[in-house]
């Protein structure tokens, strides 16, 4: 029920916002998202973290019974963590929008909270179709946020965002349905009794996630490859991996600040989460086979995205492309298919959400003041906005992956995972024939992947410091034509900033020269989390550990290789049995 509440509360507040007067919209949205956060936090306390691989807090309601579609919710450790991230970014985004959004306020906040609900739904869904519904439904609010409150090119960006991701995910749906059908035609007699006892719904028509994951493993290698292709067609776009990333910079650049924050913070994680939740355990053999190819895309994305960042003049575009590079790291860790890599990858999801989300917030604050994101028009803002500059440098460092801040832990683990995952470690190719290498894991990546991806760390420093060097440091430069020297006299700091005419325009939209209390309040939680997760990531790692262990075990030894069922027989599909619900029961 808690998960249901986490989804329903935003929906209810959306309705309230639609009914309430324009002036109340923000308050209701804030309360709604805060309530969602509180519910998510409460759910996290109820959650039994010692069994984090198990879906908990479950509930199930029949929806389209004939189709086997249920409103079935549940969360394991990874889902819970991401639900918390979603909950956290909700109030932050509402706060961040308060001065930026002045037109159609009700519509804005209503869709914003609807988006929150949909995202929570994705993470909480234990039914493939419910997952898909929420996955797709996120498109609509985002589409509206971009097309109504975006920048000049917003309509094109919104359409591209929608169509690109929609197209991909339709194919992914086909893949998921194929697995469903495979499961339905599975001959229960050919499945070992142990597995059957755990997954009662094997061999019936069901969209239950854990059943399908088990069934998927029984597919032949060829089938798995096709299904993987279909899944990646949908999820890689969302991540986005290298060749299918082009919607992202556009969408980021055009989206309003809160949209960008959510886009970077949670929406991209839908793709990585989906790959973790479905691709990895459902088609483990195919993933193991194609991990090097997919990782190659990640590595290309890291370097390619990073280098492109370096030549941007639009700050927001720079950060947007940096997401391509960062998510490359995240996916590289995922495709390392070992504990370090996948743990790092999941941590990366959270950390990227925090640090890049915060960077978008910061850029939004600048945009609100100067109405430009052009690095050639902005410079040396440290002189004028020291608080902003402090945060900017801080989050840049988090994004660069400075140890002690959150980005490092995940980036290091992702790289370490890739580094470890080489089949040649034990084979003597590396000369390690004296005794087995201690922490090598089977895989097809290896040091070269890590090394080349690691250059991404250097490139990240290059482009992010380039940005900081241009915008934060250097002689003061602001648009609206006042020269650096001029501004230096008028804007000598926040304390007496109202004197010069450099501040007139700021007064026009009621913003102080430096950050307001509200703006600081949006950043502080993120900053605190960046430090906490950088210094003490252990709880987070423990939270996802059970789930990751399970996934790794599946990838290492998929069911089919366990000898019991060399080739499961098929039979005519079983009729749906709606009476049965899930193996993992409600609490």
């Amino acid at each position, binding site marked *: 029920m808690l998960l249901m509440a986490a989804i329903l509360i935003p929906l209810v507040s959306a309705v309230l916002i639609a009914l309430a007067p324009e002036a109340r919209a923000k308050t209701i949205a804030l309360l709604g998202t805060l309530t969602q956060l509180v519910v998510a936090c409460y759910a996290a306390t109820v959650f039994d973290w010692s069994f984090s691989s198990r879906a908990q807090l479950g509930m199930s309601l029949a929806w389209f019974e004939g189709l086997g579609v249920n409103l079935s919710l549940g969360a394991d450790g990874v889902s819970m963590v991401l639900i918390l991230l979603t909950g956290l970014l909700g109030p932050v985004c509402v706060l961040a929008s308060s001065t930026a959004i002045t037109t159609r306020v009700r519509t804005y906040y209503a869709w914003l909270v609807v988006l929150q609900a949909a995202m929570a739904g994705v993470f909480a869904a234990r039914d493939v179709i419910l997952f898909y519904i929420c996955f797709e439904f996120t498109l609509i609010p985002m589409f509206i946020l971009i097309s109504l409150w975006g920048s000049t090119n917003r309509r094109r960006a919104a359409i591209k965002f929608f169509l690109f991701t929609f197209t991909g995910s339709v194919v992914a749906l086909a893949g998921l349905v194929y697995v469903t*059908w495979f499961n339905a035609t599975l001959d229960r007699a050919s499945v070992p009794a142990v597995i059957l006892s755990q997954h009662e719904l094997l061999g019936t028509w069901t969209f239950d996630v854990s059943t399908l994951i088990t069934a998927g493993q029984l597919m032949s290698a060829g089938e798995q490859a096709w299904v993987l292709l279909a899944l990646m067609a949908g999820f890689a776009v969302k991540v986005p991996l290298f060749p299918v990333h082009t919607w992202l910079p556009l969408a980021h650049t055009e989206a309003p600040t809160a949209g960008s924050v959510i886009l970077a913070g949670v929406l991209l994680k839908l793709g990585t989460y989906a790959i973790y939740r479905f691709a990895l355990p459902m088609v483990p053999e195919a993933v193991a086979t194609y991990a090097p190819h997919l990782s190659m895309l990640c590595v290309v994305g890291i370097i390619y995205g990073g280098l492109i960042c370096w030549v941007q003049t639009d700050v927001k575009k720079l950060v947007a492309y940096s997401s391509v590079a960062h998510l490359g790291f995240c996916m590289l860790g995922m495709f390392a298919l070992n504990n370090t890599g996948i743990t790092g990858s999941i941590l990366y999801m959270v950390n990227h959400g925090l640090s890049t989300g915060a960077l978008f917030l910061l850029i939004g604050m600048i945009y609100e003041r100067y109405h430009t994101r052009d690095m050639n028009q902005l410079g040396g803002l440290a002189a004028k906005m020291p608080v902003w500059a402090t945060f900017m440098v801080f989050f840049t460092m988090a994004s660069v992956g400075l140890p002690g801040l959150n980005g490092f832990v995940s980036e290091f683990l992702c790289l370490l995972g890739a580094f470890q995952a080489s089949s040649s470690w034990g084979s003597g190719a590396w000369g390690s024939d004296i005794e087995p290498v201690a922490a090598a894991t089977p895989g097809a990546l290896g040091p070269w992947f890590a090394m080349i991806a690691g250059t991404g760390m250097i490139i990240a420093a290059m482009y992010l410091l380039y940005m900081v060097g241009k915008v934060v440091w250097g002689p003061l430069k602001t648009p609206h034509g006042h020269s650096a020297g001029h501004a230096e006299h008028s804007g000598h700091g926040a304390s007496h900033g109202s004197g010069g005419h450099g501040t007139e325009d700021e007064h026009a939209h009621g913003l102080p020269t430096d950050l307001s209390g509200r703006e600081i309040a949006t950043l502080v939680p993120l900053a605190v989390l960046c430090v906490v997760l950088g210094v003490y990531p252990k709880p987070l790692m423990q939270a996802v550990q059970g789930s990751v262990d399970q996934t790794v075990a599946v990838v290492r030894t998929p069911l089919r290789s366990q000898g019991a069922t060399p080739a499961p027989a098929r039979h005519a599909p079983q009729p749906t049995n709606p009476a049965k619900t899930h193996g993992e029961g409600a609490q």
Partner: protein
Amino acid sequence: MTERLAFLYPEIVLFVATCVVMVLGLSKSLRARKSSAVVAGLSVLVAGFLAVVSTPRASGDASCPLSGVVFSHAMTPEMGQVLLPELAPYAKAVIALVGALLLLPLAGTVDRSDEAKIASGRAGFDPLRSNRAEFYAFYLFSLTGLMLCASADDLIWLFLALELTSLPTYIMVAISTSRNRSREAGVKYFFLGALGAAVFLYGFALVYGGTGTTNLNAIAHSISTGGLNTITLLGMVVSILGLCFKIAAAPMHFYTPDVYEGAAPQVSGFLAFVPKTAGFIAILLLCAAVGWGYSHAESGVGSLLHAVSADPLVQGTGKRLPYLLWLMIWVIAALTMTIGNVLALLQRSVKRMLAYSSIAHSGYMLVGVLAGPGDSASTSGVSAVLFYLLAYGVMNAGTFAVLAALERGTDAEGERIEVETLDDLRGLCASHPLLGWTMVVCSLSLLGLPPLLGFFGKLPLFTSGIAAGQITLVVVLGLNSAIAAFYYLRLAFTPLLESRDEGTPAPVLAPFRSRAAGAVIAAVGVLVLSAVGGWAMGHAFDAAKVSGAAAVTAEGH
């Protein structure tokens, strides 16, 4: 024999109502004239109710608790077609519900100026000039034909039912507005319709020639026992090609955009549902007569097309139409959805866009036809088609009703100006929130966006297609949904996101409340069915029971 009449109570009711309506429409009393629409609507609902409660069921335990209350007959092969034994109650109920929904926006279609003149005293009532009653009569005739399709057990019956469905619509189109465009639409529709009818009629003749009977049960029996001979197969191919006209599938789709654009929107909405439903029921019946029990491995064809169309993963599941028929429908389905969608992309005219989208939706549904029966709602393509007809009927009625409910004043000749292009819909959510949101909801539903009704319509097509091994076609379907997303998004978000240009007047509400009511009811229906559609889908599945061809006993004629 009287038991057999139980099948036809709904049609009888409709026919009686038709007569009553025609008479009422000639009354001098305005109230009597106005009551004709009410009578029409009520009769449709009563017919639907009767269909549910009085239709004899093949299985005693039909899922509707009311069934068998009025007449508790068990169905026998002599009584009706047993290929889709449970089809009639569901299909007729859907026809009645959607038909009633489609009636709401028809208000004032043909009699508006006349009635206005009478009301203003500029003219007296002239029975010769009054065509209101005829219009509702045509509407009822058409629905009668449609319901007859659902209970057809004979090719001749089917032919007559199809013609009864279509002929009135030709006139409805031609007289729906007094503009030349409607005349043009009428003539195109009529002439091409006659051509199409000739084609499927010829196909029927061939099927008869091949099997020696026109009774569908007997045909099925003949095919299952004697095999599918070439003439029968050719007859089936030609019949289905001809029926493609009814469902607006390629290559018989050409008329669709012109006719939908030329007709008044409420009539276009009618066209998008009624002939399409008739066509699909007919196609399903023909396919059921042939049966889905063929395996393609036997056909031994290794041509390129086979390589393209056969899915890479599943071979020879032995659950398909005969190869030739399968291949033709496969190609038609793929072509239809693609052509419909890519041409819809180019449109600015809303009605034309919806016409092309209607073509595309036929393509989607053909996937269900290919998939054939299954043992659950998720694997039965027939059930998917039947449910999709309901879903499409409701959401489609919503979009057209919005168009019908709006107008942009009248032109120099006193003819009202319709909402034509997307630009006319700008800012609709602001000026007419209910209609605007109806447009948003129905368009997104047509797009198949989860969790709206359209998605749950498409999902069984997806699942049944994959279960039948039609993975390539399902992917084509998916990609087409994505193409379609482009124009549906425009349709959904032009009212919501765009704001009206300065100086262009907002469209005003047509002075017929029922039109807007129809739109809103449709939107509510979409939302409600999105939540509880599982119930309707259960009935669709019950209706989709296909008796194996072998189960049909020979009783001949």
